[in-house]
């Protein structure tokens, strides 16, 4: 029984995870190291990598700030519309990325709501870099808030109030008491947010317009290469994302291990109390 179940799990993982991963790297290196690095050094590929880094580089810090603010507000205060805010944070999870991309087209596109005004002022959002950044921000904004919220809610207000009575200002309390207590959840949220920002396809695909060397991110670049039968180049680019995924997994496990230790400690610390 046990062996059967374990066997099924191993076969499943092998077929759906390890095999594709192996294929990605095998195809990428099929024509040797040289071809692999040439594919990555090619100008369009470099442009795609730069754009992906730019989109993630803008989206992650913004969503870090938004996530912390939202989780803090929801976790520590009571206000009207709180449950609505919680629902809205989850929206990008429940809406198909393609649909969210389309919404941007309908808002900022040529025939869109604000399209004529934008054209009149010479601002390009759709089929340009700003659209890609916007779509990436939208798709990735739940991650940090979602990771932080349970942590902040579980911790209550006691330590913050203690800091306040000891004369700390709001910012001192935030940076010296609140952030250190949630740092692992925060880091975990940022890692997930980053992984998604770099790997996002659907929403970005709709707003990008697929202009080579200008509005292609790595996932879009891979699609174009693949459709052009340039398998080695496609898989070389894909191997970058696969590496990112592996790296994310490693960091994620390390962070979870640390956070688990911290939770065990704080549970021990609050053992006699109500925490």
């Amino acid at each position, binding site marked *: 029984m046990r062996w059967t179940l374990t066997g099924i799990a191993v076969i499943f993982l092998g077929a759906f995870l390890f095999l594709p991963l192996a294929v990605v790297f095998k195809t990428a290196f099929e024509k040797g190291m040289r071809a692999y690095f040439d594919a990555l050094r090619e100008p369009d590929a470099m442009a795609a990598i730069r754009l992906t880094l730019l989109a993630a580089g803008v989206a992650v810090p913004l969503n870090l700030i938004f996530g912390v603010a939202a989780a803090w507000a929801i976790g520590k205060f009571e206000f009207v519309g709180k449950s609505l805010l919680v629902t809205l944070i989850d929206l990008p999870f429940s809406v198909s990325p393609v649909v969210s991309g389309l919404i941007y087209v309908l808002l900022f596109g040529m025939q869109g709501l604000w399209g004529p005004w934008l054209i009149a002022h010479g601002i390009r959002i759709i089929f340009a870099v700003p659209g890609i950044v916007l779509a990436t921000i939208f798709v990735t904004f739940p991650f940090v808030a979602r990771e932080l919220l349970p942590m902040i809610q579980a911790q209550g207000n*006691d330590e913050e109030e*203690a800091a*306040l009575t000891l004369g700390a200002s709001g910012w001192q309390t935030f940076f*010296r008491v609140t952030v250190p207590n949630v740092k692992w959840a925060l880091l975990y949220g940022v890692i997930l947010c980053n992984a998604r920002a770099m790997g996002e396809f659907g929403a970005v695909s709709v707003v990008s317009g697929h202009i080579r060397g200008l509005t292609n991110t790595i996932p879009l670049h891979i699609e174009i290469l693949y459709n052009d039968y340039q398998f080695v180049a496609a898989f070389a680019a894909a191997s970058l994302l696969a590496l990112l995924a592996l790296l994310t997994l490693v960091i994620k496990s390390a962070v979870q291990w640390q956070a688990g230790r911290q939770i065990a*400690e704080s549970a021990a610390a609050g053992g006699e109390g109500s925490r």
Partner: protein
Amino acid sequence: MSISVREIRKSFGRFLALDAVSLEIPDGELFALLGPSGSGKTTLLRIIAGLEFPDCGTVEFDGNDITGRTARERRVGFVFQHYALFRHMTVFENIAFGLQVRPRPVRPSEGQIRTKVHELLRLIQLQNQAQRYPSQLSGGQRQRVALARALAVEPSVLLLDEPFGSLDAKVRMELRRWLRQLHDEIHITSVFVTHDQDEALEVADRVAVMNEGRVEQVGTPDEVYHRPATPFVYHFLGNVNLFHGRVEGGKTYVHDGSAGHLVFVRPHALEIARQPNGANHFRATTKHINAAGPIVKVEAITEWGEPIRIEISQGQFRELRLVKDEVVFVVPKELAVFRKDEPQ
């Protein structure tokens, strides 16, 4: 620093937590807010600290109105029920926190902070635990660290919320005495909240007994125990026998059909006699006798069928040769009478 609380009112939604509460706490006093849960005592403490703000009424420190000031501006030391130690900081860092967050011009130097923290560690007898984390300490040690952390900023008043609430009985007794000694040493005006009457009566100079958002009585432990102002205080402070009686011509009848009065008698104020003594007495049948301990606790049923508790000394017990299921005469020595229409 003296504390004056005037006509404080506070509600949470539709729940009225404090209803026109006024208190005067003179400089240097150790004051207890005693009451059952939901009586508003913690809310009042948090309002004095500036962690909560009243709907109306004022709080004064030394005659200065500080009602609108925040907790940060009031310079109070607050000790939380569950300690609220910073879990990612060592004991040393916890105690030093209040000094380190001061604005640069008034912040003591690193050396001064170190000296101060070690001084406090000596005071709480945890010199060797400076580098430990809160999770590595026992409950009593954590409570002492919380106290040292509050004292580090040299607060004008010290406020403690159920300071011994989450400790086991033995540690509780020790810390109780220790707090009293500490207060005698540093003479800082201190207010603590408790639901434990023994704790309040043993430690405090004066006690305010609270119930349903109001102060029922303020007085020394002796006053509130021996001369309770209301039926509630009588009930809340120690065991008591309640009779529905009548007062007529200066004489109190503990049992009466018309029952216009409530008569309270503490178990130790009931005397057991073999013979009727001609004065106020009634008959009762002993049901259960617990002679283990310094006093003997007797449970009995009165002639009209109500259970009562009587406490007598071991000497009296031996003299009476009391046994179970015998009829004795009970004489109330001290009683307190309240009219029934007075609020309970």
